[in-house]
């Protein structure tokens, strides 16, 4: 019973934090892009526009929900949920801290330390494509359809390099558990000076993973499925009100999960060099959560930064990059890692 209660509390907190973060990442995106572009960004609602997300949320709730005549209604209604749920679900296996002593209990800061965490993430994240494809198809709109088709082809193509890039990491970690992957990174060093983060001993995997994650989240330069100047809004062209908000939230939730994963898999998760990973005093545990949050925030910033800097790929270029560069590169990485590990056995 206690266990269930503990889980429920953790889930409520994590969900609450993600939803709030989504709202504030949107604000951050607007603010950061504004500063990149020599302007101020939202600054009317609350100090520095801090209440803007609240106003946005209220507006989404109060907007009329137009369901066009010609859509396939059942699928049209399912699609927004089908994209938002997987985007949130990915977070279930991400360790956002080590352990924390709360009222005498040692609480593991992870919702589900599933022993196939990595596979789980791949599975859940690839579910996201269903929402996009269904939404695009059910809208019965040509722009939406093209957005959906683009999204599906793009997401499945990068799914491959995403999966393959992780194999190198797993070969070293010898576990599919994300908590094991982090613990491994918290011990030892690379070349004697650098922390044992996988970015240092699996650099190719890290590169492939980051590029693939950009493509999976449909962020610029891979935002073809919703490319405004080409497809107007792509797969969510016919959605309005709360349903549109769900597509919108899903994109940002996806980004947060992706950033958390980059931090967890390649940048040591909650590990901060110089801090004893085994010490689980309350202060240190909180610090670890903060370290994780800062790392995630940094990659969120990278997402935003890239979006407001580079132009967009064309469709065939996206496919070429995925199939002809990233995929062979990831395969090569697996072979190299295997060779290295076998030689040093």
């Amino acid at each position, binding site marked *: 019973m206690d266990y269930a209660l503990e889980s429920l509390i953790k889930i409520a907190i994590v969900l609450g934090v993600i939803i709030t973060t989504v709202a504030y990442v949107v604000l951050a995106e607007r603010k950061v892009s504004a500063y990149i572009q020599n302007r101020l960004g939202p600054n009317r609602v609350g100090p520095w526009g801090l209440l803007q997300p609240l106003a946005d949320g209220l507006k989404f709730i109060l907007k009329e929900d137009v369901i066009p005549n010609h859509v396939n209604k059942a699928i049209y209604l399912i699609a927004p949920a089908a994209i938002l749920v997987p985007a949130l*679900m990915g977070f279930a296996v991400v360790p956002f801290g080590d352990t924390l002593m709360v009222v005498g209990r040692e609480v593991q800061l992870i919702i589900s330390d599933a022993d196939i965490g990595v596979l789980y993430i791949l599975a859940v994240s690839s579910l996201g494509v269903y929402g996009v494809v269904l939404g695009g198809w059910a809208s019965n709109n040509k722009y939406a359809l093209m957005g959906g088709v683009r999204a599906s082809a793009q997401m499945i193509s990068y799914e491959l390099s995403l999966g393959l890039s992780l194999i190198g990491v797993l070969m070293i970690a010898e576990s599919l558990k994300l908590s094991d992957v982090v613990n491994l990174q918290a011990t030892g060093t690379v070349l004697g000076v650098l922390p044992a983060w996988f970015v240092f001993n699996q650099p190719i995997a890290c590169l492939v993973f980051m590029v693939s994650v950009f493509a999976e989240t449909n962020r610029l330069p891979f935002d073809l499925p919703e490319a405004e100047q080409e497809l107007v809004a792509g797969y969510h062209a016919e959605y309005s009100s709360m349903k549109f908000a769900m597509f919108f939230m899903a994109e940002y939730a996806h980004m947060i999960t992706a950033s958390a994963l980059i931090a967890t898999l390649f940048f040591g998760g909650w590990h901060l060099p110089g801090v004893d990973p085994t010490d689980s005093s309350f202060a240190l545990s909180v610090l670890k959560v903060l370290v994780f949050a800062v790392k995630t925030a940094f990659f969120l910033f990278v997402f935003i930064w890239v979006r407001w800097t580079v132009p967009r790929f064309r469709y065939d270029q996206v496919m070429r990059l995925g199939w002809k560069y990233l995929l062979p590169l990831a395969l090569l990485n697996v072979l190299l890692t295997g060779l290295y590990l076998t030689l040093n056995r």
Partner: protein
Amino acid sequence: MLLDYANVLLFLSVGSFFIVFNLFLGSLFRPDNPDPEKLSTYECGEEPVGGSWIQFNIRFYVVALDFIIFDVEVVLLYPWAVVAQEFGWYGFGVAFVFIFILLLGLAFAWKKGTLEWVRPKVDRFRDTMTRPLVEEAA
């Protein structure tokens, strides 16, 4: 162990509840004044010509086929990856052959052009006039 998945299920239910609740909340407040213009398809303000539920270019499906083949094989690599260090040279050899076959498959798809997108023909400027020019009549 199973409890871990119970947590996932719990997470799923709470997440779904959140979504349904939001939609419900909106339906209490939002206006509902549909009219024919609002409910029509968006196509830049023009009447759409033809439907959008058409047989789409097959290349997209070829990509999907490629994906399925590779994805199944990638999944097979996972169990090996976890125990790769224990298996030693024998395991590596097997994996190498496996990955080599994967690479062959990729090379085959590459060669066949299923990874290519149609590029315009070189002399497209001349052979794709909007309409053929009518020759001078006497």
